[in-house]
């Protein structure tokens, strides 16, 4: 299969993630969408790595996987605390701050 196909799949996955972030209001789904975007990046990097016959892209992928795990930890901590404060994980709850 040509490398371009992998790039197109990755672009599609990334777009799904981006649309998910913009449309969905549930924070858990939002986090999942962000993960989708990061994994699309991983796919792109692995495809690029294969295309150039160069291992650097795959090394980058490992870094992204680790960072994504740390990101979820921080995000879920914020989310759990927010859930205890206001009893919902919906991002559309009216803001306390305004212009």
């Amino acid at each position, binding site marked *: 299969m040509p490398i371009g196909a992998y*790039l197109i799949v990755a672009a599609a996955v*990334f777009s799904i*993630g*981006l649309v998910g*972030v913009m449309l969905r209001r549930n*924070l858990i789904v*939002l986090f999942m969408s*962000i993960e989708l*975007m*990061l994994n*699309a*990046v991983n796919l*792109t*990097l692995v*495809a*690029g790595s294969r*295309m*150039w016959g*160069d291992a*650097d*892209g795959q*090394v*980058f992928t490992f*870094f*992204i996987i680790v*960072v994504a795990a*740390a*990101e979820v930890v*921080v*995000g879920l*901590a*914020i*989310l759990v*605390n*927010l859930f205890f*404060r*206001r009893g919902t994980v919906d*991002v559309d709850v009216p*803001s*306390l*701050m*305004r*212009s």
Partner: protein
Amino acid sequence: MNPLLDVSFAAIAPELVLTGAALVLLLVAITRGRPQLVMLPVGLATIALGAWVAIGGDLVPGVVLALLGVAAPVLPIVLPGRATLVQAWGAGLALGAALVLTLWQVGPVLGADGGSLVASASFAGSLASDGLSLFTRLTVYLSALLVVPLGYAYLQERRINRAEVESLILLAAVGMAVLGGANDLVTAFVALEVLSFALYVLASLARRDRRSQEAGLKYFVTGAVASAVLLYGLALLYVATGTLSIPAIGASITSVLVPRGVAMAGLVLVTVGVAFKVALVPFHFWTPDVYQGSPTNVTAFMAAATKAAAFALLLRLYLVAFPGLQAYWVPVLAVLAAATMLYGAFAALSQHDVKRILAYSSITHAGYATIGVLTLTRAGLSATLLYLLTYAVGTIAAFGVVIAVERRRRGEVTLTNLRGLGRTSPLLAGIMALALLSLAGLPLTAGFIGKLEVFRAGVDAGLTWLVLIGVLSSLVAASFYLRIAGIMFLDDAPEAVAVAVDGDGDGDGDDVEAMEAAEARMPLLSAGLSSAVAVAAALIVVLGLQPQLLIELAGHAGVLLR
């Protein structure tokens, strides 16, 4: 040569000290009141390490390490039973050591090449030592050093001074400093995420304050999405060029072998991601909410240091990796910068919350600093670095005064609360006025020097229209800052007549109002707050009156590793 052996400890000495200090402070926190369990062995080990380094020929880092090693067990003895104060002093000393080590790093290099800095790389080309990394370190460490004492009493009073605060500030500073020197995409990405994660936690530090929680959440979601978009852009650059090294990308991006479409897609995504991080209009919308909701000392740190770090990434990517594509990105960034300068200045006009006003001011300043990037010249680079440093000093002084007023009010600070501040605490109001004048860029302040240099570089590079927009935006902003100064000095103190604007709707503003007239008479300063604000104010004046040294340093530092 085996690249695995290319470990240059000298190149990351300040970061090593800060990371070590952050870990030690966390360990001290879990000993629960018996800090010597950690401090004594760590102190002895550090003294031994310092002696070993000094004997090895590096006198300055050896002495610095030995002093830190002595300080570690002494601090808990001098401050018995004050665990949080030990943490703050420990963090402050580590940051001071990091500043000294930064100067030690560049001391011999500076002046070797007819006065200008010599760029070099370490860690198999992953980390650059050049003017950008030097100035990012200076700005970030100075900001952190000012912010730690600035927020100590404030955090204590809001009961959010938990043990991890200082460690997180140190780790965020490490991330920012490494971002300043990051010379390949992996290093840049990891450094960016290190500083972001620490700041997400710091922004939502006040667990019982819904505003802080909302700020943390907003910062997290926009930050994570921006990182993902930026990362996808970086991945596409790798696909297009086959290398992760930023200078190598810059060398090959114009080659005919590079698929133009993929490279352009990468450029667009990187631009969007970076514009989010430095808060350029229209990717700025998270800034006011995050700045308003976060604890004020964290806001000061974000405004001063994060701005410098994000601009370091922008400078490195656009001046090293993308100069070959300048025909595409210069017009786009110029339009974004113009929109940012105008929007920030005009949007601030209709705000009441002081932290929000300063947030819009930070947006405006991102626009000014972008002018320096767009020049693509050495002078422009120097001017941007200088600008970020002067902005950091000014904004920290302003937020310091906000903290002082906030402690008195025990709630958010609106323009109404500043009324009569010049009568009740003239010194505080004077410093606020000075900081605002510096942010507005009036002569004899540090901000003027930064703005002058950036505008001059812009005119020299033929960006006169952009500079004119910058001047217009500065005028609008200046009129507004002067109005705040007028509110502080000309209006009467809020006595019975004051009408509270209870912006949050949970009713905590109005009932405080009666007490406030009485409280308005007592200044609520702490030793840390006053010294940090005083140092920041002194820097504004000194840099404004004697700018030669800094301008010269910035001139020497206009060097990028390519």
